[in-house]
């Protein structure tokens, strides 16, 4: 394992946006993340793969402050994430989507995106009550920007006033992405963005992810089961198995890594 993991000091001199060291999360009796070391260079697309229950979502939940790590450090852009509330993490510039879509079901599509912008808006409640002009101006700007985001993720504008729960599945995934993008994140965490999609939709989503990085200067961390997506879009791949990082490298290296084949692909082949 020590051969595969890159010790902190010897990392290549790219600018690192997220660095995680010895991150451990224990649920009573179960180690969901064990001593994970992990880094993402700025503006990279990195994938995290691993069999079901490997601890990928748990890793996301710790980054976003939803659950607290048992031990270890997480540093984002020079700020430690330990002990931060989720909304503070969002404000720092980390946005995410969820494995099982979690939209604000009874809000309109547009309102869902606009909530995503919440952390970047300034209106205070008393200003809104009085109806100050700059509140209305901000509102109009955010609305405009939200429509643009709908365009960007490929969600037709005519859906803007529909309730989120009434959207078709593929569009719900897009909406979740638009909501995440609305906060102008520096780091975007996508938890299985193509789950449940047909091959056509999957291809569109893959293209979209690549485009987002180009157009919005984003760094993207992706959890994905679809190997075509993973191999097609990511620069580096990290493999988790039973909570441990068992490999890290370029798609080529991962594809040929015997441990990965055994833990991940092998398991699938025998299943």
């Amino acid at each position: 394992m020590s051969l595969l993991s890159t010790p902190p000091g010897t990392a290549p001199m790219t600018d690192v946006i997220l660095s995680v060291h010895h991150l451990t999360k224990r649920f009573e009796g179960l180690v969901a993340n064990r001593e994970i070391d992990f880094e993402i260079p700025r503006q990279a697309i990195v994938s995290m793969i691993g069999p079901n229950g490997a601890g990928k979502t748990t890793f996301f939940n710790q980054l976003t402050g939803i659950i607290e790590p048992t031990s270890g450090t997480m540093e984002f852009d020079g700020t430690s994430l330990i002990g931060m509330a989720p909304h503070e993490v969002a404000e720092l510039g980390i946005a995410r989507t969820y494995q099982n879509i979690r939209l604000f079901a009874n809000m309109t599509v547009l309102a869902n995106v606009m909530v995503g912008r919440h952390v970047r808006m300034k209106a205070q409640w008393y200003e809104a009550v009085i109806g100050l002009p700059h509140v209305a101006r901000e509102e109009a700007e955010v609305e405009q920007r939200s429509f643009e985001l709908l365009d960007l993720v490929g969600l037709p504008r005519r859906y803007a006033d529909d309730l989120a729960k009434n959207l078709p599945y593929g569009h719900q995934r897009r909406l979740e992405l638009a909501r995440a993008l609305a906060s102008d994140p520096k780091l975007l965490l996508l938890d299985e963005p193509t789950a449940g999609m047909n091959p056509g939709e999957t291809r569109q989503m893959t293209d979209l992810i690549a485009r987002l990085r180009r157009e919005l200067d984003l760094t993207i961390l992706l959890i994905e089961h679809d190997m075509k997506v993973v191999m097609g879009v990511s620069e580096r791949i990290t493999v988790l198995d039973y909570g441990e990082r068992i490999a890290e490298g370029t798609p080529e290296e991962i594809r040929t890594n015997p441990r990965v084949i055994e833990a991940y692909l092998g398991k699938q082949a025998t299943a």
Partner: protein
Amino acid sequence: MAELISGRQLRRVATIGAVAAVVVLYLCMVGLVEAFKDRNVVTGVITLGAVMLLAVPLIAGYRAALPARDPSGPTPGPAQRIVFGLLVGLIAGAVLGVFVLIASAVDVRGVLVRISPPLLAFISFGLPSGLAQLAITGVGGLVGALGALLLVSPARIRNAVTSGLVAVLFMSMIEPLLRPRLEQLDYTAISDFLYKAHGLTEMASILCFVVGAGAALLWQPGNELVRRSIEAAPVQTRRRIRGWTIAVLVVAVLILPQVSGTFLAQVAVLVGLYLLLALGLNIVVGYAGLLDLGYVAFFAVGAYLTALLTSPDSSLGIGLPFFVALPIVMLGAGMTGLLIGAPVLRLRGDYLAIVTLGFGEIARVLFESDALRPWLGGVQGILGIPSPFPVRIDLQLGTTHIFATGPQVLYYPIFAFCALAAVFAYRLSNSRIGRAWNAMREDESVAEATGVSTVNYKLLAFALGATTGCLSGALFAVQLGSVFPGSFDVFVSITVLAVIILGGMGSIPGVILGAIVLIGLPELLREFVEYRILVYGAVLVAMMLLRPEGLIPNRGRQRELHEAESEEEEETLDGDLMPQRGQT
């Protein structure tokens, strides 16, 4: 020849018929029919008790004729549907007939105190046993079939008939208000034409039906026409039209107590007080999704703080002027909101409801307690709260003489506060803050991860809700001139919640309508007082089943861009009256 009625359809008809029968029997047993059997709707033709009884097979027949939710079976034709309605009505009628038979043979009054001989005679149309059963069953079937007929007839006709019937019912219901007022204003001719023996005359009822039906028929094209011409008009004209509409509305609202007289003004004051409460609770429950069942606590705090600060008879005895005290009261209530909000921040859903319910009761017990009696007056409360508003206004403006007393005066400040609260709530709901609340209501942890500081926004909701509620309490104290702990029981919380649920959670027009319907109407139907809670319960259950989103649901902002789709959505919504199951 196709089967007239399939097994499945028969089962459905039987079920609906059974439910209708139970409802009919229930209405008789709880005494509702008896209470209203002498209240005329159309004098000499039909009474309110009869309307109630007949409404049941009518609605049941209508429902029986609705297409089954399971579309796999054969779709019944119109004639078949009318047969369904007929059968449902027959079942309900037959059961009632048998019940009358039993009740007149055996004395059931020991158990069912409301089943009196006059009631039985009323239900049997005064006919002897046997004949009566036939008549009841027949009428039931007929009305059931009518209900079904209503469903299979074109929507335009259905709407027209329904609206005509509602108009008749409405005009006869407001008799106790309208008639005295008309007579007072010397319009005796009109009142004699409209009413006879507390019910509508036959001519008047026909007129009302025609007007109601006509309005319904003209509504759609008229609406269309108005909208088209407004859309076609240049911006300036449009703005002028809007200005005029608002001006007319404002004037109407301002002169309402003058026209309506004291009693209706009193009702309007009550509606206003509850509306304020509902607007405040709507922030907490409707926007932020925090089910607060102890909301009455804020109402009480507002009333008691006002009493303490303004009444010279209170323990403080400082007798501040109302408008000096008001900011202090609101501040105090806001703090109470935070105080109650802070410990329940981590609670969700049912747990929050139960804990706040407890808080509400604690507040009442504290106000009532002997320990705090030296300060709060215990059961005797606090008296001598002066009103900052004049007791009467007597003005001579040119040729018009304006005279207003008591509630007719109080109406204005309450209306002003309601309008302010509504505008503020509306602005909040359409801002970053309202969206954050809604997001929290939909999924708290995702809202938090999306950047909403849920702790802050919960506290803000509690504080603003508390402030609005206490404002209502302050006005309530001023209106009564005294406060007693007995006014602040849990039923206030429940009523306010019912207003919101009926109107539509998170919808300001809905809350206003809810307050008018739930607080105003029962005042007009004085006979209802005894059945108020029963009717609330029935209304809420019916709403949950038929229209869980409320009378005027909040559907987010409407957008021009979206007109075509929203009409489609309208239709699907109408067709799908059932609540969406398995979705939160």
